[in-house]
């Protein structure tokens, strides 16, 4: 009996050792210059942030559709007047030419502003969705994920901007990026926006972000998929 126990113990130790050694090592991505690790190119960075923004937008689309389907009776809101989104104060190009007219720095700045402006409201959205009984956990999880994605995306875009500055693509006309302000989701009338309005506004803004990023990419690194 003790012999078999010993064998089992030996086997376990062997397995553990094997496991330790066979751990998959991932190559760290160096943020600050090449020091022996794999450095993604600007094109790779752009691809990543664009994919990320696409996922974020599809999540917001899903949540918005759920809202419309289950909580609002009519599809076409007759006579409904939306309150302004809190991000309407941010000037964003509303067409292709306008977007192409903007300089890279300004475009990047717009993106970052938008993402920054949604940091807190998304958190609030998740909070209110989680507390309400109407939502199942799946929806509130989506909202949480959406918030995290927005946060990640912002970080990613900041990295891209940093890389561009390093590569000299961003001119010095703009003295650094102006600090994006965190904004409160307060509409003009001072009332807090409802969940639906938040979702509606965020869906639109995430679409904007995705489009702007694509334009930026094809302007800066036009090789792939442009």
């Amino acid at each position: 009996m003790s012999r078999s126990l010993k064998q089992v113990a030996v086997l376990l130790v062997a397995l553990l050792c094997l496991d330790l050694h066979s751990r998959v090592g991932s190559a760290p991505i160096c943020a600050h210059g090449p020091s022996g690790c794999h450095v993604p190119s600007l094109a790779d960075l752009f691809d990543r942030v664009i994919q990320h923004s696409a996922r974020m937008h599809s999540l917001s689309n899903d949540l918005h559709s759920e809202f419309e389907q289950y909580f609002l009776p009519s599809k076409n809101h007759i006579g409904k007047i939306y309150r302004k989104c809190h991000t309407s104060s941010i000037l964003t190009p509303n067409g292709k030419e306008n977007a192409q007219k903007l300089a890279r720095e300004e475009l990047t700045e717009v993106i970052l502003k938008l993402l920054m402006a949604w940091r807190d409201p998304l958190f609030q959205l998740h909070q209110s969705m989680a507390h309400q009984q109407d939502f199942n956990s799946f929806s509130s999880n989506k909202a949480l994920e959406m918030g995290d994605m927005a946060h990640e995306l912002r970080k990613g875009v900041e990295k891209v901007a940093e890389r561009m500055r390093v590569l000299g693509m961003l001119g010095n006309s703009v003295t650094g990026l102006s600090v994006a302000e965190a904004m409160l989701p307060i509409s003009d009338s001072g009332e807090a926006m409802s969940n639906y309005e938040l979702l509606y506004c965020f869906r639109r803004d995430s679409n904007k972000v995705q489009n702007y990023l694509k334009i930026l990419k094809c302007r800066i690194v036009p090789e792939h998929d442009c």
Partner: protein
Amino acid sequence: RFSRCDALIYTMVLNDCVSAPDKPRLTSCRSPEKETFTCWWEPGDDGGLPTTYALYYRLENSETVYECPDYRTAGENSCFFNKNDTSLWINYNITVVATNALGKNISDPVEVDVAYIVQPNTPENVTAVVVDDQGPFVRVSWEKPRTADTRSGWITLLYQLRVKQEKDKEWEEYDAGMQKYYNVFSLHPDKEFMVQVRCKPDHGFWSEWTQPTYVKMPDYIPRERSLWIIITIFSIFIILILTWTLNVKRNSVKLCLLPPVPGPKIKGFDKQLLKSGKSEEVFSSLVIQGFPPTIGYDDLLVEYLEVYDNEEQELVLDSKDLSEVCMKSKSLSDCDSGRGSCDSRTLLLEKCMEGREGSGSDQHQYSQHGETSCTSTESSECQGLEPGSPESSDGRVKTWPVVFSSPQPHHHYQVEAVKPVYHSVPEILNRSSPHAMPTNYHQLHHQDIPQQEGRFSKPACRHSQSYNQFNLDGLDTPAPGVSPSRSLEYVEVQRVNPENMLLLRPLSDPNREPEGSDYAGEDYSKVKEVTSNNILLLQRDTYHQCVDDYSQDLDSQAGQCTTQQPPHPCKPVIYQSNSGMPQEGMRVMGNGYVDSTVLMPSY
């Protein structure tokens, strides 16, 4: 129409009821490239009067109403918004107003955000080409719709294509992602296919399918045929292997498929009795008196038993083989069957063994010899196996290997350890009682009868061989005279007596009594003796029985034959060579027979 007349004015001019127009309805708004868009409406009933339609829109959070800038570009009942008038990410509140002389009607408003109503034009220049690289396939390629601006990244398009034959109902759909080509495999040869492509922006609606493009697959049957050839060859190969395997294992397969049929259980048949050897009692219970009718019995008789042995019988069998053979035959042959002919040599063997088993004692001794094979006429040769036969006191039994059948030369041999390879009539003689042999023989002779199973009559047992006694030491013991001279010859079944015994008589001399015949076949050689070195001494002239005059001097090459009636001297035809012989191969005898019994191992 008349139902509407109640609130309406009847005009004299038109002689009909007229009314204000019905509410128009906005059917859809679409943007092909996310830079312009068009809205279409459906006019209601015009009320009998010429009606005009106007589209008005209002931007989100603004009260300013604008009218549609372009009613023509997009056709009838449409409004086209050009680039200047199109703003993304802003809700348009659009209404259509129908106006005629009698009134107007406003449609329900529609909220539109241009970013979400994108439906591109169809892809262009769809080409399908057959490529014959490693199996023909079709490479479909196309171009993006002209209006979509993917270069600047404003729009991202995903493509999809579908393929079918003209007659098929269902399309095969394939997703091509963002690439502008696709390879379609697994299309049937010698058939014509149609291909269509469509696209979609990452958030938006699918475009219409392109016009079908036709492509004809070439005929590549030869390639398929070679595949069939390979398959055929492979299956033939497998069949061959299976056949060969079956062939190799055919015995076990046969055993499996056709298991040996057990013998019939005859009512009244007592197996134990049979085993004990009292065969007559066994059979007596089965015998119905008066049946079979004995009248005309002779007609049923077999004329004579003809025995021959073929070359195979001359083979020296290993005693082991013999026992195997006997065992096999034992299992396969049916003791209850009427087969009594000694062409089945092994049959007698088993009978002998059975007879032996009854005795029980010294069974091992006999088993050493294996079974003695039955010889031809000597169907009653089993007598040698009787329990009553002399047994070696020291356990060694000498047997007389007899390669029996009439043509077979007699051979005697001397065995030290008894292990005759092959003998038809085993004669197990005991060296210790050589003198007793003749008497034993006689005794055997007579004793055989009751102990036989009754198939064969003892008296008919002819043993053309003279007895040899085996002197283990090879010396000095006077060989007992061969008692009755025995000769190999054909025997005729005389009759079958009621005890189911075959009474045999020699063919050559119908008046002959079974006993004492020394008639021998003319052309066959008899084995005179086997010397210590396992040499067979043959007699050339077998006309007369070569009574053994077993010279004690067994080394003598020329065995002397003393016959009782010696008109012809025996001439040994084999000369013994010296030692080292025993395991030699076949020896050619003088008369042309090859005797392979010398291959017997001497034990």
